[in-house]
């Protein structure tokens, strides 16, 4: 039986297709390295993107640099796709001087950097949806064709700001891409204790908004759905609630023990659906990737990571007194 050759979605060049893979892989390898650093006692905390790389890089790749992204703590893949470097991310991981996210003030996973049009987030879940709505309001008011994209977990959708944000976006038909990375759990709480419905995207109807669910481990499907939503936004046709069904294959964070709330079989089954292996297969079938390039890229990335680790370990912590800066604007600044 003749197998159909995978097709690249609209708007993606061959380089673009490969770049997506690279971003996913860098995210994975960096994340893994953070865990080992944590486990050997070199850093107090990791929160992880593992398993969700296709979702993250997929939705992020559908945006332009002048769009605004509002990621959540799991979105290492988004930070990398937007252009944050491994060296920068390692500074953030260790809380060191020069971390472009917060200069060592926030825990790892709190991405934000104006250069990348990536809004700084807190640890408080779901609040960021409203910020994206406000950003999109400003864009629309100025007649721009930019969009705001915001990500969050499915558990967090139980919070009131979810509803308030969708409601605003729909009343004003704002160009927002709402991305729910649905990994089936809020720490230990399974989806059926978070909501009575099957698909988060089913809630879009409550706002007369487009709602779409796709396989979050299929990066091209994610990209396509996100792009469609983004274009809907650019055309002035309002927001989309995009749900990506995925799974985190590691514990919630380095403080978590996931064995108490989910079976090893379930985790292993999902590891078998690894989004990176899957996309490597696709790219290989497209003739854009092969084992040799894979090995070479891995080696290159690993050494980039090790260099970043070395540099970040050697980097100083911020001065104590630096903690006093930027509570308010400094003299003369606006």
């Amino acid at each position, binding site marked *: 039986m003749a197998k159909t050759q995978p097709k690249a979605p609209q708007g993606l060049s061959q380089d673009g297709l490969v770049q997506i893979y690279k971003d996913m892989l860098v995210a994975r390898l960096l994340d893994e390295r953070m865990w080992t650093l944590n486990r050997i006692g070199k850093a107090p905390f990791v929160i992880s993107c593992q398993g969700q790389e296709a979702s993250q890089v997929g939705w992020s790749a559908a945006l332009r640099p002048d769009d605004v992204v509002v990621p959540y703590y799991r979105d290492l893949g988004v930070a990398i796709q937007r252009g944050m470097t491994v060296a920068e991310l390692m500074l953030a991981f260790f809380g060191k001087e020069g971390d472009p996210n917060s200069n060592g003030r926030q825990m790892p996973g709190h991405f934000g950097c104006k250069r990348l049009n990536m809004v700084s987030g807190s640890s408080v879940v779901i609040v960021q949806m409203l910020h994206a709505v406000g*950003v*999109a309001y*400003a864009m629309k008011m100025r007649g721009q064709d930019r969009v*705001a994209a915001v990500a969050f977990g499915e558990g967090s959708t139980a919070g009131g*700001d979810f509803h*308030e944000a969708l409601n*605003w976006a729909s009343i004003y038909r704002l160009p927002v891409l709402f991305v729910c990375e649905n990994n089936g759990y809020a720490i230990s709480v399974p989806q059926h204790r978070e909501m009575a419905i099957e698909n988060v995207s089913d809630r879009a109807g409550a706002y007369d908004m487009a709602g779409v669910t796709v396989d979050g481990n299929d990066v091209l499907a994610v990209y396509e759905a996100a792009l469609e939503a983004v274009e809907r936004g650019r055309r002035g046709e309002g927001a989309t609630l995009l749900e990506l069904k995925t799974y985190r294959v590691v514990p919630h964070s380095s403080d978590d023990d996931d064995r108490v709330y989910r079976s090893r079989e379930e985790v292993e089954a999902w590891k078998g659906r690894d989004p990176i292996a899957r996309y490597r297969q696709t790219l290989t079938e497209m003739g854009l990737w092969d084992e040799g390039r894979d090995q070479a890229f891995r080696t290159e990335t690993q050494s980039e990571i090790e260099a970043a680790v070395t540099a970040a370990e050697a980097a100083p912590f911020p001065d104590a007194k630096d903690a006093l800066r*930027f509570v*308010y604007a400094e003299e003369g600044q606006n």
Partner: protein
Amino acid sequence: MPVRNMIDSIRDAIDVAMAEDERVLVLGEDVGVRGGVFQATKGLLEKYGEQRVIDSPLAESSIVGVAIGMALEGLHPIAEIQFADFILPAVNQIISEAAKMRYRSYNDYSAPIVIRAPFGGGVHGGLYHSQSNETIFMHCPGLKMVIPSTPYDAKGLLLSAIADPDPVMFYEHKRLYRLIKEEVPDGRYTVPIGQAKVVRPGRDLTIVSYGLMVHFALEAASALAAAGVEAEVIDLRTLVPLDQDTVLSSVRKTKRAMVVYEANRTMGPGAEVAALIAEQALFDLDAPVGRVAGLDIPAMPYNHVQEEFFLPSPDKIAKAAQELVAS
């Protein structure tokens, strides 16, 4: 010079800012067609259109959260919370988000929004239209907090707040909206944030206050003067940053201090003022630091008997001052 009451001077400040700078906009419940339930935004919809005068959905968290997002993109939103009592659903967006945006992003992002809210009682508003919850926001580095007591200051301070690069809480005592009129210039002028004002000089004790209570303190001071006691009255005007110098130099002169506020007594703003004095001017004091404040009950009741019982009054202030001076 035109004579305005406080609500008119507030509307005028917003109007001036909106006319000068198209990044300024207002959002809140009923601020559009209705012009705000207290009429602070009356006429602005007609003048500046629906995009800049937004009748928001009835959801305070969203009013602040959306304003933050607007500010991230360079707009300068003025959010109206219909009553300060109803700001509580937005506390998370204010404290976790607006107040910490600049800090957590190491100055990459900021949230220059103004949050206006009518507070305070004595208007038969009962338990939920009379509260004074400024303590919550005073205890939040990253925010500023302004409370004017006169029409002139209200306009000047609001224009400063709108121009401020950081989030500013702007609390307006609802009983002051139409209580006093004074000359308020047209056009732009500012009163700086962070400067208290000695509104009546005196030598025998210092009464520190803000909002409506400034006027009660002044009334009390007149009564005291008749009895030979000269009270110095300070209008803080800004709770954050607190003008410590003005407070402390007055207290060092008069040797006696009293704080008057309408919020619940325990942990109210006067606690911080009293603590400041106890720390910085203790050896200057000839008497305990007094506090005349709202009662420690959930809020002031609707019926006027208990409403009056709850609130500080010129009489209660004068009486407490007499005791302080006698001690």
